[in-house]
């Protein structure tokens, strides 16, 4: 259950301005209309006993423990299901009530094992607490009668167990799974005394359960409990921090025992997640103390040499010497750095500052290059700001939800649960995706339209949707006239109305029936509040930026920007993608998305940093690779990224990395990139440092240090040391001072400070004098750029073409239990769900090739080949195959191409022409990879020694 140190209000808050005043035990209390008596009592400081109610769930009224007396009413109503009415006088304690409650407890306890002292929930159990507050002193029925004390424990889930002997059948778990998570994995089977909780016919692992943990924190007993609590005991203190996995940015309580994490529980007051979580943030944090963590800096001269462990001072001095040597020899612009979306804002800011101020160039980029750089370009061009327009809560006001190229139930699970709540309330759903993602059909949710397009035709589909809006007179002309540039709109309108953009004309190209496009366009334009959510299926294309602009065009034309319930919302992949972009990680932009050629901004930074800054854009990641192969780029400092695994066309990347004279990798593990490194600087996990992350809704949330850095230094301290060794002084004593500098130099962050973050919990930028507490919804009065700008978005087919040799299209993505390159999640119990990357293929394509479910197959493209296990599934459309990239040895990026978005060079992960054939053995690349991996591990100090013995 949730920590009993946190107040449980019993039933959910009721929003709204109307209030009622009631008397609880003689004290007046005023609450929002619709509030339960139970909750009002908590507000008045009175804790009425309860068991089946908790404030994350609607009241159910089954345990009869929360009975009260109400003046003028007969009987004893349950306070959890009784709403407050004006003037109501409630009594929560009386002899009669005490007897009734004791009777209820007596029944429960008569069928409950009496092993409190050795129970893992001891000290944090509501049943135990209720026995205490009701004054239960004896159980008259004895435990010899019919009972449930012999049920077998289900330990199939890696993180929590289910002990039916302790279950009181309050159904909190079932309701949590239904109402909060929306998975409907649990049921109450049987009736009366025979009723019991079941997760499908077998056990939790074999059920629909996605291990979000909602049932575990809802359970008032030890029935559902974290295995970590069973092993380590109850925590003694808690620190509120932010999940380091995805762009939802859930707030968590890290429940601790000294410097040891006992469990992570979603924070009820977290504004991004409101007390919910997914399997990654909730359970998959064990990687932080995994034995593979590297704790000592290392250096070597050549990448074939064994690593030498050195002190921090030696490693930093060596790195600085190398950078200066290379710059002296090959010029100032021959070095660069890469910031990480997994590091904090403060750390990212420091790395770009190091590059610009200490390296003296603009060769800094970030992994957002390979995911959301088109979002930055597209939204800045059309709306004026490189960020999503809404907060997550906005979805509660949506009447129509469009999901394009995103798979929220896997990629952004906590937000997906919110979205599903709204869909179950009746909002309409349009899914645009080549795959039948889970959202298309989940319990009580069915998409109104699934536009199952051919990969690479997003722009064509969006143009066709806009064509219908414009030619059927569905555009909101008043809105456009008032808020957008008139001439650009007219130009766009003329273009989009061209017959070539009609759904009928594009049907053959997109594979989507014209009638479906027309239906979806009408629904989107007329539903009321319509919101678009999109993911990497939009950006990771050769027309990624064009697609983002086409989305913005569609939203502007229908008046769907600038209020709750609408908007254009990128679902960000990694936790701090938004933040790393905000912090000036792009080679052409200073913090706050201001171009390096903008003299006034550049001068402000130059003056504050005490250096001259370059006014020309630097190299982007793919340009760095090309320049490395070309010989004009020689040294790279990579913080917290694994470019060797995550970037496309692996063999090209490997060649580039091999060409470097000095590669400095800072990471918590010896990742794939580190295998090409000359200097390894051990990184720190999110548990080991202070800072902030910014999620997909622009929400800046605190990250708090709960344990000392394993290797002695937090990542920001390492960057600082490197700057100092390069002769550029950096002397921050705490990340709060870095944030103060960011706020001073960045208008959208002007009002942000650690004090304010402590006070408010989190802040959505822009936060400044105009919006001192932040901005949930952007562009409310006008667009950030003034007038919204329509952009002509002509559909250009990707250069990647299928052929007789490569007749299928490969598209890539991610799954719930694994995260990005998997370096973290592969080192946790999450591997129980996903041990290897697999290739999904349609039954028709499989049959043609003689492939059966589970066969090993070779996936081949013009670039390379790799061997994977096939999964035959109708999720795929014929002609399209799909896989993930969570495991380095599967080498999916050996197959992907160098094609990229025209505007930002974001790689086209989503379209590769391939062939699939039956093949039992691994590809040459995989064999080479395995051999190289073994060699590199052998070069590690401790392991090398161990290797000698055997």
């Amino acid at each position, binding site marked *: 259950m949730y920590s009993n140190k946190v107040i449980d209000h019993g039933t959910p808050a009721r929003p709204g301005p109307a209030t009622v005043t009631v008397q609880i035990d003689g004290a007046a209390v005023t609450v929002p209309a619709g509030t339960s008596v139970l909750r009002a009592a908590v507000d008045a400081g009175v804790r009425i006993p309860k068991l089946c109610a908790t404030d994350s769930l609607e009241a159910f009224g089954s345990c009869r423990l929360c009975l009260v007396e109400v003046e003028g009413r007969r009987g004893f109503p349950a306070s959890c299901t009784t709403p407050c009415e004006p003037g109501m006088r409630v009594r929560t304690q009386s002899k009669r009530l005490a007897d009734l409650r004791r009777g209820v407890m007596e029944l429960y306890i008569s069928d409950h094992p009496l092993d409190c002292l050795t129970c893992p929930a001891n000290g944090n159990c509501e049943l135990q607490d209720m026995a205490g507050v009701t004054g239960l002193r004896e159980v008259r029925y004895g435990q010899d009668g019919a009972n449930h004390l012999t049920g077998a424990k289900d330990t199939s889930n890696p993180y929590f167990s289910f002990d039916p002997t302790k279950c009181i059948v309050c159904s909190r778990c079932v309701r949590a799974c239904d109402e909060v998570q929306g998975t409907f994995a649990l049921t109450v089977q049987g009736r009366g005394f025979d009723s019991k909780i079941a997760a499908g016919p077998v056990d939790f692992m074999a059920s629909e359960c996605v291990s979000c943990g909602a049932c575990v924190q809802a359970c008032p007993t030890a029935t559902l409990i974290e295995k970590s609590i069973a092993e380590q005991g109850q925590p003694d203190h808690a620190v509120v921090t932010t999940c380091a996995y995805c762009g939802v940015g859930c707030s968590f309580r890290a429940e601790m025992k000294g410097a040891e994490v006992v469990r992570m529980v979603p924070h009820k007051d977290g504004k991004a997640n409101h007390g919910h979580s997914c399997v990654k943030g909730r359970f998959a944090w064990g990687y932080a103390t995994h034995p593979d963590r590297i704790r000592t800096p290392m250096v070597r001269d050549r990448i074939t040499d064994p690593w030498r462990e050195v002190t921090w001072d030696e490693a930093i001095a060596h790195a600085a010497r190398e950078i200066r040597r290379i710059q002296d020899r090959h010029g100032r612009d021959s070095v660069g750095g890469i910031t990480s979306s997994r590091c904090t804002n403060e750390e990212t800011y420091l790395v770009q500052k190091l590059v610009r101020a200490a390296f003296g160039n603009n060769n800094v980029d970030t992994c957002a290059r390979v995911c959301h750089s088109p979002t930055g370009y597209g939204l800045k061009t059309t709306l004026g700001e490189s960020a999503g327009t809404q907060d997550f809560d906005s979805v509660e006001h949506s009447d129509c939800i469009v999901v394009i190229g995103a798979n929220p139930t896997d990629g952004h699970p906590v937000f997906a649960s919110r979205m599903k709540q709204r869909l179950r309330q009746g909002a309409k759903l349009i899914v645009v995706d080549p795959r039948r993602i889970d959202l298309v059909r989940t319990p009580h949710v069915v998409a109104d339209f699934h536009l199952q397009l051919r990969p690479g035709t997003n722009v064509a589909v969006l143009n066709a949707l806009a064509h219908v809006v414009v030619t059927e007179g569905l555009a909101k002309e008043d809105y456009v006239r008032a808020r957008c540039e008139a001439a650009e709109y007219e130009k766009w309108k003329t273009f989009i109305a061209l017959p070539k953009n009609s759904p009928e004309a594009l049907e053959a190209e997109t594979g989507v029936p014209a009638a479906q496009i027309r239906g979806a366009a009408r629904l989107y334009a007329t539903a009321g509040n319509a919101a678009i959510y999109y993911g990497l299926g939009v950006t990771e294309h050769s027309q990624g930026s064009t697609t983002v602009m086409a989305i913005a065009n569609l939203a502007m034309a229908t008046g769907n920007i600038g209020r709750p319930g609408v908007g254009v919302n990128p679902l960000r992949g990694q936790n701090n993608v938004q933040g790393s972009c905000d912090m000036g990680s792009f080679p052409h932009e200073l913090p706050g998305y201001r171009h390096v050629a903008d003299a006034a901004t550049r001068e402000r930074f130059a003056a504050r940093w005490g250096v001259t800054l370059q006014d020309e854009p630097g190299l982007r990641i793919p340009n760095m690779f090309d320049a490395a*192969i070309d010989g004009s780029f020689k040294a790279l400092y990579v913080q917290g990224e694994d470019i060797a695994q995550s970037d496309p066309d692996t063999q090209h990347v490997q060649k580039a990395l091999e060409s470097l004279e000095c590669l400095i990798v800072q990471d918590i593990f010896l990742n794939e990139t580190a295998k090409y490194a000359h200097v390894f600087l051990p990184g720190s996990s999110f548990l080991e440092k202070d800072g902030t992350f910014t999620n997909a809704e622009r929400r800046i949330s605190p990250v708090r240090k709960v344990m000392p850095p394993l290797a002695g230094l937090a990542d920001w301290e390492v960057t600082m040391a490197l700057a100092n060794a390069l002769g550029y002084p950096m002397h921050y004593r705490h990340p709060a001072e870095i944030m103060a500098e960011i706020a001073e130099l960045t208008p959208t962050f002007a009002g942000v400070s650690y004090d304010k973050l402590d006070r408010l919990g989190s802040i959505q930028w822009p936060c400044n004098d105009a919006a001192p507490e932040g901005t949930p919804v952007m562009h409310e009065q006008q667009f950030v750029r003034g007038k919204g700008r329509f952009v002509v978005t002509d559909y250009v087919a990707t250069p990647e073409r299928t052929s007789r040799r490569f007749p299928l299209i490969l598209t890539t993505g991610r799954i719930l239990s694994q995260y990005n390159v998997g370096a973290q999640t592969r080192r946790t119990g999450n591997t129980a769900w996903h041990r290897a990357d697999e290739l999904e293929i349609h039954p028709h394509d499989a049959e043609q090739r003689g492939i059966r479910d589970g066969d090993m197959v070779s996936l081949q493209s013009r670039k390379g080949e790799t061997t994977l296990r096939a999964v035959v599934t109708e999720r795929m459309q014929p002609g399209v195959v799909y896989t993930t990239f969570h495991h380095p040895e599967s080498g999916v990026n050996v197959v992907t191409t160098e094609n990229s978005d025209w505007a930002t060079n974001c790689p086209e992960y989503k379209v590769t022409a391939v062939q699939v054939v039956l093949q039992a053995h691994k590809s040459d690349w995989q064999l080479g990879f395995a051999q190289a991996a073994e060699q590199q591990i052998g070069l590690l100090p401790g392991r090398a020694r161990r290797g000698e013995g055997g």
Partner: protein
Amino acid sequence: MDVRKLVKMANEIGAFFAADPDHGLARENIALHLQRFWEPRMRRRILLHLDQGGEGLSEPVREALVGHRGRIEPRGGG
């Protein structure tokens, strides 16, 4: 820098902006994009390629490079 790649990238930029019915503006936007997003050595390389005949460059890109050379040429030559 691999010039074939640069030509391909430039042509893709060209294809996007050339959709604008205003031809002059399209050329200017191509040049502006190169200036704002391409690192100087990339710009220098594509101009050198233009001077060597500009094989493979699409018409809009070629016209943008010729017509707005001053804008695309890196400042200071360094």
